[in-house]
């Protein structure tokens, strides 16, 4: 729980520092592209584990049904983290816009595969990909 709070805090801090980068999941380029910089594929991925206590609590939730707020937050954290990593990658390459953002999830814990005797692990695995490009500035268009 301490880890979750710390993570949420760091996410907020880093999200506030993103600055001027345009994010869309449109298939095409939503702003005019500066032809001087070639576009590039950028990716981010993360795996975050649930903790044993929350897993135990979820056991009860599973009996009565309904939303699990913790697992919901866990996946939200994974998506935000992966998105931030992708943005960081784009920014380090000098890009200021990302389009066609896609989210994907994976299963490393072996829950969907039904790993049999091997103990399965609870984790949120998120992968995100997009095309980074350099926007042509309005001043340049005019």
């Amino acid at each position, binding site marked *: 729980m301490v880890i979750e709070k710390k993570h949420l805090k760091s996410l907020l801090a880093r999200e506030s520092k993103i600055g001027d980068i345009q994010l869309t999941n449109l298939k*095409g380029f939503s702003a005019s592209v500066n032809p001087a910089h070639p576009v590039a594929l950028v990716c981010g*991925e993360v795996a975050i*584990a649930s903790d044993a206590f929350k897993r135990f609590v979820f056991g009860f939730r599973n009996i009565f049904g309904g939303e699990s707020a913790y697992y919901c937050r866990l996946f939200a954290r994974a998506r935000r*983290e992966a998105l931030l990593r992708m943005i960081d990658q784009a920014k380090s390459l000098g890009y200021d816009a990302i389009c066609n953002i896609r989210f994907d999830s994976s*299963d490393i814990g072996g829950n969907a595969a039904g790993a049999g005797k091997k103990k399965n692990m609870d984790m949120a695995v998120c992968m995100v990909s997009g095309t980074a490009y350099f926007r042509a500035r309005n001043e340049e268009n005019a």
Partner: protein
Amino acid sequence: MFVVNTDSIPGFRIVEIKGLVQGNTVRAKHIGRDLAAGIKNIVGGELKGYTELLTESRREATVRMMEQAKQLGANAILNVRFSTSAITAGASEIMAYGTAATVAPLN
């Protein structure tokens, strides 16, 4: 080589579509990393080993896809998508696929 997940590249036109290319990989981390992940599963937090595993798998799949595109004589892969499936605990399967094409600058 251009690898993008959009269906066009600004400033370039598509000369010829070479067809679908794909690359996939199934990777696992050594047992030490799996044990560490098991412990992390008690306290919670990021599984750095598995994050690394994903990054490696994605790169491997992308490189294999690019090799296939190179064999077809393409210089770009458009509309790249990643797909994953569940195989077993501690392993990740990533498949990258896209359309190989030759592109040329507009002017």
